[in-house]
Structures are given as C-alpha cells and as structure tokens.
C-alpha cells in the first residue's frame, strides 16, 4: 500500500451512516471538507490554535484539524450541516442570526457546535461558564458579546422559556 492509497472507514455523520475513502494521513477536517463535501467546517490555522474547525465527536467538541480521520471509524461526528432539522434552524442558529452573533460567519459553525455541547451538558450556564466553554474559539468580528447573548437566549428558549432579546442588546443603552 502506498502512502496515498485510500482507506475506507464507516462512521456516523450528522446522524446518518457514511462510508468514506481517503488517504490515511488526512485529518478529520480534511476528510469532512474534501471527501465528504461538508465545507461548513472551516479552518483558521490547522495547528489547533484557533478553534475554527471545531466539530462534535461523540458529542464532545474536538479540533478536527488535530484528529485523524482514521480515528473516527465507528464514531459519531456532528458538523454545522447537522444542526438544522427538517429545514428548521436549531435555537442557537436562530439566536445567532437574530442578534448578529455571526458577522463574517467564518468562525460561526465552530462556536455553534461548542455552544451546543455546552447547553447539552449545562442547560442553564452562567456568563462565566459560557466564556469558559468558548475560550478556545477565536472570533475577530464580534467581540464575543453577541455570542454570549445568543447562547443565553437560546438556552432560555431550549428550557421552554418564552423570551425575546433585551432592547439594549439590539439598540444599545438609552
């Protein structure tokens, strides 16, 4: 077998079984983007420094640039493409859109998945817990504040609370 000879693995991607063949040195990031055509997962450094390539592996946020594709055989991978269900946005996607938590949108898939993992583990996180959970993800556009507010709003809605964004969030302080 040459270095470029492809290997085939079976895994679950966004809730569906998938088989994919790729060169064995490829990272999960490369397999997702190049072999599964799921380009919603982005890259900012490919060195594990920025968090931009975050996906969920068996529900845990991982840096897909540091995970070998081969290591995912038999595991469950979730990417941003798997968040909306039956054409309906995930509550986090709704609030990220409404509050402007996505500006250029490049780091957004990673933040959404890291936030989803947080809310599954902790449905009512404090602001500091949100900051801790997202500290490994860089965003150069938003200053993170709209991201915190979007996570808090989505968390409240996922708990069944009927809440709208505070006026100050959208219009500033009077």
């Amino acid at each position, binding site marked *: 077998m040459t270095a470029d000879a492809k290997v085939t693995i079976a895994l679950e991607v966004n809730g569906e079984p998938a088989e994919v063949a790729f060169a064995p040195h490829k990272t999960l990031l490369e397999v997702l*983007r*190049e072999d599964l055509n*799921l*380009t*919603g*997962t*982005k*890259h*900012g*450094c*490919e*060195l594990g*420094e*920025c968090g*931009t390539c975050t996906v969920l592996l068996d529900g845990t946020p991982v840096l897909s640039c540091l995970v070998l594709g081969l290591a995912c055989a038999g595991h469950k991978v979730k*990417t*941003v*493409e798997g*968040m*909306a269900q039956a054409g309906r*946005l995930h509550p986090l*996607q709704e609030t*990220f*859109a*409404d*509050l*402007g938590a*996505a*500006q*250029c*949108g*490049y*780091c*957004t*898939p990673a933040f*959404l998945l890291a936030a989803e993992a947080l809310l599954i583990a902790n449905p009512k996180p404090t602001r500091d817990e*949100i*900051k*801790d959970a*997202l*500290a*490994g*993800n*860089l*965003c*150069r*556009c*938003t*200053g*993170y*504040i*709209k991201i*915190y507010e979007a996570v808090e709003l989505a968390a409240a809605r996922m708990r069944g609370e009927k809440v709208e964004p505070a006026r100050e*969030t*959208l*219009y*500033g*302080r*009077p």
Partner: protein
Amino acid sequence: MAGHRVVGKAHRKIDAVAKVTGITKFADDLAFPRMLYGKLLRSSEPHAKIVRVDTSAAERLEGVIAVLTGEDLPIPFGILPVSQDEHALCLDKVRFIGDPVAAVAATSEETATAALDLIKVEYEPLRAIASAEDAVAHPEPRIHDYGDSGNLHKLIDLEFGDVAEGFSDADLVREDLFFFEGNTHLPMEQHAAAAVWSPDGKLTLWSSTQTPHYVHRALAKVLELPPARIRVIATPNGGGFGGKSDPFSHEIVVAKLAMLTGRPVKITLTREEVFYCHRGRHPTLMWVKTGVKKDGAITGMHFRSLLDGGGYGSYGVASTYYTGALQTVTYQVPRYRFQGARAFTNKPPCGPKRGHGTPQPRFALEVHLDKIAEQLKLDPAELRLKTLVPPNSLTANYLRVGSMGLGKCIEKVVEGSGWKQKFHKLPEGRGVGIACSSYISGAGLPIYWNNMPHSGVQLRCDRGGGVTVFCGSTEIGQGSDSVLAYVVAEVLGVDPFEIAVVTADTDLTPVDLGSYSSRVTLMTGNAALQAAERAREILALHAARKLELPGDRLVFADGRVFDAQDPDRGMTFAEAVQLAEAAEGTIGTVGSYTPPRGAGKYRGAGVGPSPAYSYSACVAEVDVDPATGIVRVPTIWIAHDVGRCINAAAVIGQVEGSIYMGLGEALMEEMSYRGDLKVVHKIPSLLEYKSPTTLEMCDVVTYLIEDPDPNGPFGAKEVGQGPLLPVMPAVANAVYDAVGVRVDEVPITPEKVLKALKKKAKGEEGRVGPSTFPQIPWPEPTRVPPPWEGGDGKAAAPAAVMGRQR
C-alpha cells in the same frame, strides 16, 4: 425613526441564515473538477539579490504541472498608482522574509508543497533595514530605487497657519513622544483564490478580497488581458479588517497558473503566509507639540510621525497622510503643522488596518491631551467638551465637518460610567480614562484618479414583485449586502428579505470601489437610494394613473402601493410593477454616488476629506495588578455618533467588534521581529500572536448617538472603524489614573507597566515610551493659510507666505 419601516430597526442580516448553517461559500470552499493546487515559495532572506532560481528538480516531480518564477510575470503592480512596486513573484531581489519567489501547481497540495522544497534559490544577501530609525540612519542599501530620500519612501510637510505664532500665544506648550507598535488584522479566514481559464480566452477569479475592482485592474495589467475578458468574483470574506484590500501575489499567480495549465487552480494561504501578506498597522513613532490657553483652548499643534512601512508601498502613502489628517476634526486647532515620513524596511508590508493610519495619532493626541488637562488642572472630559469642532465647519486643513455628535457622545459616557465619581477617586490600582475619536465615512477620492462614481447600483423589478439589487460592493461580515436590501426595502415598501442582492462580481455588478475606508453604508447606500427612488418614481406614475390619484399621495409599504388617505385604496407592489412594465417595458433603474469635492486644493489634500465624519467617546475602567503589571479591563463605555442606524443590531455589532479589536491593540497585539538584522518574524501563528479570547474581552456598554448627516443615506455615517480608535488611549489614560505611570506606547504589556512602576518607585519619571525622534530630511513645507486667515484651500506661493496672510 418615525416614519421609517425598515431603517433604524434591528434586523437579521440577509445572509445570516447562510452564515449560521454553513452554507456560505468562502473562497477555499470552492472546488472544481481537475483542480490543481498552487503553492508559493517564499523568501528565506529579508533583503537579498536573487542570483539564480533553479526549478528543474521541482518540474520533474510527478504530479507537478507548472512552475512559475518572477520572469513569467514581469509587470509590476500595486494598489496605489504611485507605488507600482510589487511583482507577483520577485524578479531581481527579495525585500522581506516571506516575499514570494516562485510558485508551483500540482495535482495535490502535498505534491505542491514537496515541489517547493526542490526549488533552489541562490541569494546574494544585502544589509537588511530592520526599523524605521534604521532606515533613517541607513539610506543605503536602498530597498527600492524610488522614494523621496534613501530608504524614506514618502516625506510630507504641511503647515496650516503659523504654528510658532500659535505657540507664542499659548499659556502652556507641551511636547510628548509616543510609539504605536504594528499589529495585524488576523482575519479567521486565510486568504484564498481560485482561477478558471476557459479556452475562449476568459479568466474567472474567485478571491477572498475586499476590493474586487482593484484586483480586476491589477490582473488586467499584469496578465495583459483586456478587462472585459476577466471576471473577478469576491467571495464573502471571512473577516477583512483591511487585510484583504490590496491585490496580492497569490491572486495573480493563481490566474497565471490557470492560464498556463488550462485547469482550475486554487491557492489557499497557510496562517503563517497570512502574517507575511500583512498590510497591517504601521509601527509609528510620533512627536506632538501643542500650545493651549489656561481654559484648554488649543492655539497651535505640530505633529510628526515616522512610519515603518515594511518592504513595499501598499497603501503607505495614504497611510502616512492619514497619520496627520484627522487631528483637526475633533477639537478646534486654529494652526496646525504635520510632518510625516514613511520608511521602507525589510519586513512584511504595512497598509490599511481598521482605522487606517489614524489610530496611531489618535492614541498620541488623546494621551497628550490627558497630560495637558492634568497640567491645567482641568477634568479631561471637560477640556474636550470645551474645544469641540462646531458642526458644519471647515478645519484648518480644509476638512468639511457636517454633523458632529461628539459632545453628546462625551456626555453619555461620562454619565453612564460614573466618571465624576470615579476619576481620581478609585482606590490605588483601579482607574478610569477617557478618549475620543473621529473617522471618515469613505474617502473623498478614489485610489486612482478619475471622475466616475465611487459606487454604482442597478435595480430590477420583476413582475412577480421581486426586486434584485446589483452592486459591486463586497460583503466582509460588516453587512454590506444587507444595507443594500434595507435601503431599497425602505423606499419601495417591500420586505428586505424578499430582495435578491447580487454583489461583488465584475461581470454582473456595476463598479463599487470596495469595502474599505468605512465607505460602504454611505456610498452604496446612497447609490441604492437613488436607484430605488427612480424605480419608485416609475411605479408611482403608473399606479397613480390607475388609482386616479396624485403621485405624492401614494405610500409604498408592506408590499403594497396605496393611498395615504385611504389605505384600502391601492394595489400590491407586484401589480404596480406589472402596470409599469405593461406601459414602459422591463423595469430597471440605476443609481450611483460620487462624494462632494474636497475644499482643500493643496498637494496632499486628497487624504482626509470625507462626505461625513463619525464620532466616538470612550471611557475605560482598568484594574492594574502592581505585582505583575497585568492590566485587566472590566468595562468599556462607548458612545458612537453613527448619524443614523440603518440596522441597529448591525451597528451594535460593529461597535462591540471595534472595542474588542481596540482592546487587543491596547493590551497585547503586536507584530514583532527578532532584534537583529535577520528581521525574522517572531510570531507568525495564532498561538503566539496574542489576541483577546473570551477570557480577556471586557464588558461593553454602548450608546448609539444619531446626529444625522445630510450626506448620508437617511443620515447614516460610518460605524465599522471609528469606535476602535479611542480604546487604546482610554486604556492608557486609565492605567495612569490607576497607578500613576505613563505607558506612552501600545501594546501596554505587563512588562512595560512593571518597568514604569519600578522607575517610579526609584523616584524617576514613571514612564515607558520613546525618548527621541530622529532627524528627518523634511522637505520645504507646503504652506496653506487656514480658512480664517483668508485661505482658499490652495497652497500659498512662497512670497505670500512670508508676508503672512492674516
């Protein structure tokens, strides 16, 4: 605002859903059948002649389809007509570590990377120029064979009134020195470009660029193709901040490789390469001398800047002028002199980063004023309020100020932050600082001289009621696509989310100059407004006829056209389009925008004029640990005069993002190099280049001030850059209030704070910062009498100046 249905409200951006679902296609998300991967070989020498490039081994590697060197692309280019000093691949010499020398296209990224290792470049090293001071001291060896003097690229000397006389009228004259370290944009998306060459002689380039029009021009020039055979499509930028505003080597190389191989080619830069592309904030040494009366009124100001430009011109001539242009638009400066110099050095080229050339002098000016206020025993907020430039006035350097909401901004942050209860009154280690700023809403002149509009829009109304807006503007995350939709929706009374927006495609869209200079909302907004008003006029004519009403009674709202006095009397928007189309044929209009001409007529007057100036005031609270020197910023209060919000939520987003980026510049971000003549970049990675994470980001309290400017669409002014500017000086002033030491340079690192504290403890001046400004061979000043001394905006003839027009 009353009467507006769309403008002024908080909306989603029209591309928000695409962004949160991962559907948005960024440049590296593109892939084509038979696509090749391009890679650039970059210089390992900071300054050297290229003796020989041997590509033979690389060409023999299996999977390598093409190899390029400088000789394949010999025509120079550059963003400014006066600085056409770059080659897609270096021809005869390299000017910084990272300068591209050769390129490869191969069937895989791995093969392309392996091929780079097989290219042998023989260099003849030259002495490197490591800093601006080094460039002043060493005119030789010259980095470029052009420029004003030795290794000084640009020298400027402008005097508006007799500054010496201004100083003699003053009660206090103060001089200070400041240094602003260079930093970089760090967009999360690395630059990428893909090119397709079709056998019918047409080239298509997709690129993560803020300025597709300028890339189009550069491609036509270097590739010697008719512009009509080149199509440039700017993909949505994964962050720009100015870093994707130049035409770049990889964009030209990828196009050439596609032409040569007949196959699609893509180049995606690594993060390390993004640091080499740079074009970020110029490291700037500054000296400022100001005369003031006892009440704080300024009698004269003299400002000098020395910019470290890096290896190429880029936007540098404009950047240099910008370090002297906007000092006059916040506080009244009756006499003003500016001397600016830009040096070539053997580092990645500097250019425009958010605030372009103005954050450095704003830092200097606002800290300088803080020191003046202390000497005069005045509250620094009060001092600023007393000296504000009045609205609708002309400054000493002939900038036309329109709406001016800075006073309201200062009052808001003073009140909101509890300034009066905190300033000088917080316990040791805690402090507050205030600073203000202003920024342009687009530049008055285009990059290349012409009389054409800066922004164009085409608008098409479909008989189904759909509206499509075409504009060359580029979405970089700031919401430029959305602004087009909101403005058109407001005028035509349709839902902004039912408007199709086609942007940034030189085959499909009229020229817009690009997403830089905070120009988009004002300029494309005005162009869209004109196109929409023209469409409305056509539709109103036929709807009014049908309804037997005077046209001015018609309201366009909620997808209908109806009688203002009897809303039931009307029709759907689609029916109005159908009536008009039946009568006149296909309904389409155009709109365009050209800024008003500047008032200054002297050489250099082109940089600084803008249709409108935004204003910001900022209070920062800091917590300084005297044991470690670590500065924490719990809260920043910011008030920004945006003229009018088009989308309030997007405005807040720009303000918070600006505060974030300013905080990074204030405390940690720096492009730094090893302190020797190898000029090796210390930190070309996201781990080592420190930028704020969620753990460093402060709380932000935002006040949006709306002082509409008649030049803005619905009164709107810029917001994307201005609110960054006051953060650095506000933090520096707060550190002084907290621990009584002056760090007169950014970033304000723990090391510098500790050093200043130690000096203070020893009884020395508690200050860290530059102590000298080098001797520069300044040219003869261009003397321009200010408006209140009978000036007409033109430079005075030398003889007339001697007699001093008063």
